């Protein structure tokens, strides 16, 4: 079915990888248990009744390790029935496929990042983070027995993005862990942790040796990676055989995803330029003197939230979506869904001008009379698109002053930043918000363009 290899053959292919994967997870947890056991203080969680045996964190992770050790041979067996035990049930997979669409995915990731931010004090606890890591690894392993999922994730060019997800997760945890500690210390009037280590050491040997070890380790990682995994190489180039889907390199897939909502001149040229310019502007519009040189969230909440929204929610999750969830014809596919090139999705998107003139005013869109000159045609086109034009100009010109009037926070920003810097900041933020706004408009009212001037190649 579907042109995929038979399922039992596929299981034989992944079984070696999966068995080793679970074995590594067992080792990972065993090491954690060992380190905890070696540690000085042994925290007692509870006692086993009857035999009165203390349950410590080390014991818990040893049990987890044992669990992975048990399921590893199941994976190695490559047997359909055994492996069914360590797979996500078909009903769960089809449930996830059914739930997933661009709206649910994007709003879901936003909700996830927001929840992680709000619950950060709980999530940074090492045992919570370690449990989350174990759970996500287990979930990933249990998904790998799904042919469609495995096909997408193990495509050579997609492997780095799997790595990116886990690396970002780890480093976000690491940064938040330190930020929360520093914020707690600040509340007690203490200086940040980084300050405690301000005594000076000699670069030789302390830094030079660290660098050397890093280089050796990295070389080893690169060599192992290169031996274990062949770099992608497909069929020879052919100008007549267009692959479906045709995707840009993975780091540009966020931009390609924007093409769903904006025309190439916006998604491919203007918005990327604004991203670069906006990044460069950050040090000049962030006047907050606090949080320079140490991890903190509370002391620079606004900057932190804006950056995380732009980076994690808009940049990273769109790349992940473009890589794993966009299939033939750039249609959306659930993580366990077969990439069917014949999947048809209805596209009935409507321009704002049509909503305004036809739906709301019950008339027809203004059109230049037959035989009018170029200038007349231009005037009529502007009249036709007047609602969108007013909206866009109003968005950029009116929202910044309105924010000053209506919000104490933005009022403070305006006073401290001055007119020009305030306008730069707010317009950059408004530019960033263009994407989520268009997304929402598309999902709710099927809006195609705010301003549609196809005769001048200017659709917005």
């Amino acid at each position, binding site marked *: 079915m579907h042109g995929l290899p038979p399922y039992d053959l596929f299981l034989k292919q992944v079984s070696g990888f999966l068995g080793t994967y679970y074995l590594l997870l067992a080792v990972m947890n065993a090491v954690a248990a060992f380190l905890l056991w070696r540690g000085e203080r042994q925290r007692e969680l509870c006692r086993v009744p009857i035999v009165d045996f203390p349950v410590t964190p080390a014991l818990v992770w040893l049990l987890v390790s044992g669990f992975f050790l048990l399921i590893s041979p199941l994976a190695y067996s490559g047997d359909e029935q055994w492996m069914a035990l360590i797979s996500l049930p078909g009903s769960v997979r089809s449930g996830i496929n059914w739930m997933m669409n661009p709206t649910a995915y994007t709003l879901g990731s936003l909700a996830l990042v927001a929840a992680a931010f709000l619950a950060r004090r709980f999530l940074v606890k090492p045992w919570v983070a370690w449990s989350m890591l174990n759970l996500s690894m287990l979930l990933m392993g249990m998904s790998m027995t799904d042919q469609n999922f495995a096909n997408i994730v193990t495509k050579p*060019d997609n492997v780095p993005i799997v*790595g*990116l997800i886990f690396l*970002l997760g780890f*480093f976000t945890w690491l*940064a938040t862990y330190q930020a929360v500690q520093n914020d707690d210390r600040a509340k007690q009037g203490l200086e*940040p942790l*980084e300050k405690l*280590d*301000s*005594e*000076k*050491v*000699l*670069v*030789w040997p*302390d*830094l030079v040796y*660290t660098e050397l070890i890093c*280089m050796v380790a*990295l*070389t080893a990682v690169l*060599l192992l990676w*290169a031996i274990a995994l062949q*770099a*992608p*190489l*497909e*069929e*020879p*180039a*052919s*100008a007549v055989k267009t*692959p479906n889907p*045709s*995707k*840009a*390199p993975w*780091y*540009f897939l966020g931009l*390609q995803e924007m093409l769903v909502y904006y025309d*190439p*001149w916006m*998604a*491919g*040229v203007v918005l990327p330029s604004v991203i*670069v310019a906006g*990044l*460069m502007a950050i*040090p000049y519009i962030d006047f*907050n*003197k606090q949080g*320079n*040189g*140490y*991890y903190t969230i509370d002391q620079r909440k606004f900057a*932190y939230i804006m950056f995380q929204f732009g980076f994690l929610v808009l940049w990273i999750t769109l790349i992940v979506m473009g890589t794993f969830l966009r299939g033939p014809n750039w249609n959306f596919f659930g993580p366990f869904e077969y990439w069917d090139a014949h999947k048809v999705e209805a596209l009935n998107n409507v321009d704002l001008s049509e909503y305004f003139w036809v739906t709301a005013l019950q008339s027809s869109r203004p059109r230049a009379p037959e035989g009018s000159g170029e200038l007349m045609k231009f005037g009529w086109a502007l009249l036709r698109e007047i609602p969108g034009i007013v909206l866009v100009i109003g968005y950029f010109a009116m929202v910044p002053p309105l924010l000053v009037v209506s919000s104490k926070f933005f009022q403070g920003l305006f006073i401290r930043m001055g007119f020009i810097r305030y306008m730069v900041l707010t317009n950059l933020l408004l530019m960033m918000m263009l994407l989520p706004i268009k997304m929402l408009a598309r999902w709710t009212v099927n809006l195609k363009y705010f301003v549609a001037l196809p005769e*001048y*190649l*200017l659709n917005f």
Partner: protein
Amino acid sequence: MPTLGEIIRESQIWKSIFRHPAPVDRRNRIVVMLTNFFLHLHPVSIKKQGIALSFTWCMGGVTFFLFLVETVTGVLLMFYYRPTLEWAYNDILALRDVTSLGILREIHRWGAHAMVITVWLHMYRVFLTGSYKPPREFNWVVGVILLLLTLLMSFTGYLLPWDQLAIWAITVGSNMARATPFLGYEGPGNQLLTIDGIDMITNASDARFGLLGARFVGEETLNRFYVLHCVAIPLGVALLLAIHFWRVRKDGGISGPL
């Protein structure tokens, strides 16, 4: 009897290269940082906090090391690979299947992916520690340009294997340039650049043409991207890296709480 090591360290040749004794005591550990060309990038001493891996993640250093790995493997690959329609794909295929040390290509490819990721992580760390704040504003700007050049280096390199993945990724990516406002054949405002009824911006003169050297991804593009990938962009990166590192030192070393 002097040992062999002592003989070597006392010889004129050794002393001409390393002008002081081995860095085993405090004085010589300071001197080595000042007299060694490769080490003089560093300060002599540094706050303990500035070398803590939990603080720096070592991502800037890792990115620089990956740049060096890419340079070395890239130069070696250049001895083998020919950027022509006839040979490009076959050379990569041979590197994969038959050539000794063909693994250089896998290292180069995976290293490039890794470099994009580590640049992002470096930027992420610098943001989260607020290290772009005064006096380091300008170095952040240099860093953003380096980020852009890293992406461009990766993008131009993507085409060189000349397989389906390559040309279609570049086609999709460069199609955007067609829509550049004013300068793109299908971009808004290009009609304004018309002289005496003759369009200045056509599909043989627009931004995309400038990028590809042709109206579609072909041999001219391969040559253009090859030169950009192997010479032009790395030179720019090397210059900016030098400025980036120099500014780290001049702006007060690695950031930390004041």
